[in-house]
């Protein structure tokens, strides 16, 4: 599948996030230079982005689907997740209290985007009132920056 672009449209429902993970990990695994651990990281980042997309659709609500576009070009695996939700500003996300603060337990949500940022080599959020696009990029062994 290296060199090919694969598009997947999923209904914006929670039961389809596993399918998105499955497809992305299969495409990532087709590039044999990406270690299993990095495929797991990408899979988790995709799961987080799809969860946010589905919740964004649910908040409006809308029947529009979430679109995933995946490609592996030998140097990197790239996944774009596009939703038709209401958009958000990633710079405006509230900070959690430090983990040593008892108030930290009041926050059960908001861990997805920090996880995405930590797991992939590049992440880009483009958001407007008509939706959000999240581009995730994982460099393979042959595509690591010097």
């Amino acid at each position, binding site marked *: 599948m290296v060199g090919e672009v694969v598009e997947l449209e999923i209904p914006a429902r929670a039961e389809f996030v596993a399918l998105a993970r499955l497809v992305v990990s299969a495409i990532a695994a087709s590039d044999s230079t990406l270690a299993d651990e990095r495929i797991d990281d990408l899979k988790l980042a995709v799961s987080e982005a799809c969860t946010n997309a589905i919740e964004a659709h649910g908040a409006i609500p809308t029947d529009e689907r979430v679109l995933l576009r995946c490609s592996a070009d030998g140097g990197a695996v790239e996944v774009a997740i596009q939703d038709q939700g209401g958009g958000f500003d990633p710079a405006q996300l509230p900070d959690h209290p430090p*983990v040593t603060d008892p108030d*930290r337990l009041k926050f059960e*949500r908001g861990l997805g985007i920090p996880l995405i940022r930590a797991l992939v080599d590049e992440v880009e959020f483009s958001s407007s009132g008509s939706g959000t696009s999240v581009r995730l990029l994982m460099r393979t062994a042959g595509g690591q920056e010097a």
Partner: protein
Amino acid sequence: MDLSLDVTERDGYSVLSVRGEVDVYTAPKFRERLIELVSDGKYEIIVDLEGVDFLDSTGLGVLVGGLKRLRSHEGDLLLVCTQSRILKVFEITGLTKVFSIYESVDAAVADD
């Protein structure tokens, strides 16, 4: 995709063994089971994550919510996890400092 949740009793603890994938689809079932245990007066809970293949931030949210609920009853929620890919999620989010994480149910019980 399925999530299996089995409860056993062990030395005063309720051990909730989780198997499968924990994500936005399965997390509600996990949350409900934890809430049921607390409602039944089980305030010392060990969640065994050794059978978990995948866990994302919604699963973390369930565990944080469970810990908060138990602490409000002077109880505790201990975790059993040795899988590096699951531990990594706790490490990135700093939650290794919030939860007590053990290598086995035996180790968790012994640390009482």
